[in-house]
């Protein structure tokens, strides 16, 4: 029975089972005006801000990755290694963490290691949201129509590769440990122990990297999110609860750690190039 406005009246009884499991209602005429959006607030501002922020970081990171100099300050009695160059694995490093790559590597030693933190951030659930909205306009904002005619999301190459985020997380933990060691090493002043402004910069850097790494959604899943019955997995439940406290702030930690890693590198650059003097507290 068809009523007004295309509403179909269906009575489901045992005698007419063909009405059970009707197909999903597709098509139909949509209401409302045919416009991109009716929003009048400044919906574009967060996307423009994060788009500019990410672009500035990529420009800075590219410059610092290729500059291949002034990334380690050992000349002024300090032990500051830029996080962009840590661990330094090539023989052409000013300060070698371990000569894993050997002498054949002639390019900047930052390049082979930056693949891992770059991959971790590129596949991060927060950054995905940011670049899908800011650069791909998919969508430009909530309730604002996207310009693309078709959409397949993360079902095809290359975006399906975002599913390997957890592998980058495994490496991210290793990098967080290394950057923590760098913060400890920043207390080394020649043959004595001390603390300078740079030491503080390195400590904040390591702390923010840990907060970003531990608040990750993949971490939350691996720590305990995969468990259905928490009563039989007490330790994983404890970890899951702790990570769940950090997880809602993942965006904040993503930005803070991104900015601060740039600040740390630039500080090392300024000190190593002799542009500024690193003040020593004790």
């Amino acid at each position: 029975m068809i009523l007004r406005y295309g509403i179909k009246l269906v009575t489901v009884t045992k005698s007419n089972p063909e009405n059970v499991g009707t197909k999903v209602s597709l098509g139909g005429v949509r209401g409302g005006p045919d416009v991109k959006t009716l929003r009048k607030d400044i919906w574009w501002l967060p996307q423009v801000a994060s788009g500019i922020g990410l672009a500035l970081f990529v420009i800075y990171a590219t410059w610092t990755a290729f500059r291949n100099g002034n990334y380690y300050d050992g000349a002024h009695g300090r032990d500051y290694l830029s996080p962009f160059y840590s661990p330094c694995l090539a023989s052409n490093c000013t300060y070698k963490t371990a000569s894993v790559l050997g002498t054949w590597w002639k390019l900047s030693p930052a390049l082979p290691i930056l693949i891992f933190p770059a991959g971790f951030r590129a596949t991060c659930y927060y950054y995905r949201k940011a670049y899908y909205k800011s650069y791909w306009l998919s969508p430009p904002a909530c309730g604002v129509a996207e310009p693309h005619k078709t959409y397949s999301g993360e079902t095809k190459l290359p975006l399906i590769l975002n599913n390997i985020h957890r592998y980058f997380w495994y490496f991210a933990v290793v990098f967080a440990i290394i950057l923590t060691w760098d913060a400890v090493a920043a207390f080394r002043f020649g043959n004595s122990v001390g603390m300078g402004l740079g030491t503080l910069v390195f400590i904040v850097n390591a702390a923010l990297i840990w907060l970003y790494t531990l608040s990750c959604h993949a971490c939350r899943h691996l720590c305990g999110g995969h468990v259905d019955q928490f009563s039989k997995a007490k330790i994983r439940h404890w970890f899951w609860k702790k990570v769940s406290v950090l997880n809602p702030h993942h965006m904040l930690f993503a930005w803070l750690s991104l900015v601060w890693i740039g600040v740390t590198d630039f500080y090392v650059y300024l000190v190593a190039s002799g542009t500024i003097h690193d003040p020593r507290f004790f």
Partner: protein
Amino acid sequence: MADLVVRLWRGDENGGEFIEFKIPAQEGEVVLDVVHRIQATLAPDLAVRWNCKAGKCGSCSAEINGRPRLMCMTRVNQLPEGEPIVITPLKTFPIIRDLVTDVSFNFEMLKKVPGFKPKPREADGTYRMYTEDVERGQEFRKCIECFLCQDVCHVIRDHEENKEHYAGPRLFVRYADLEMNPLDTNDRRQLLVEKMGLGYCNITKCCTEVCPEHIHITDNAIIPLKERVVDDRYDPIAWLGKKIFRKSKKVETDAK
């Protein structure tokens, strides 16, 4: 108090237009109150779906100034003063008339969710659930099925063709609730990827933004489901661990 200017979409499947109403403002009103006053005084044939006026039935979903919201939970004094209040029907679903849309798509997708299949009872004939086992799913059961999340999701809002193979955020909340249930024995991950379009979600969090029940749809339902799919499909370590240490759940591959 100054008059309110309300721009309402009026029409049906044959077309429509904005009609502007000017009515006196009253203190403490929500948008649904204003719409009811328009219906009572200026447009008695205005179609609007509502029920509880308390943000619990999910009936009065609409788009207010371009944002999907419950009319009963949107206070007039929270909207920009001196500007017209623009009210339109949900964009993602077919129009019936004025502010009423046909949301049956969501119920049809709900029918396809493989149901709860509990494991056998314990020796004393009971099921045992501890607080920590039930608390995670409580959030999901707050859903009032207003379908604002479905409406704002660009996967179907901007691409009608995706409705054939995309369940949408509300349904992912339901899937997450079932998948995380300690008693349930079904495994819906293959179904989620192959027929329910979990991979289409690009985690823009619009669903979370509009949820009137403040369910963390993306963080607590969709991303955990995506990670469970990674366990199943893209992580050989997790796959190996599952083979060695755990019995697999029954794989539910077909939508009903």
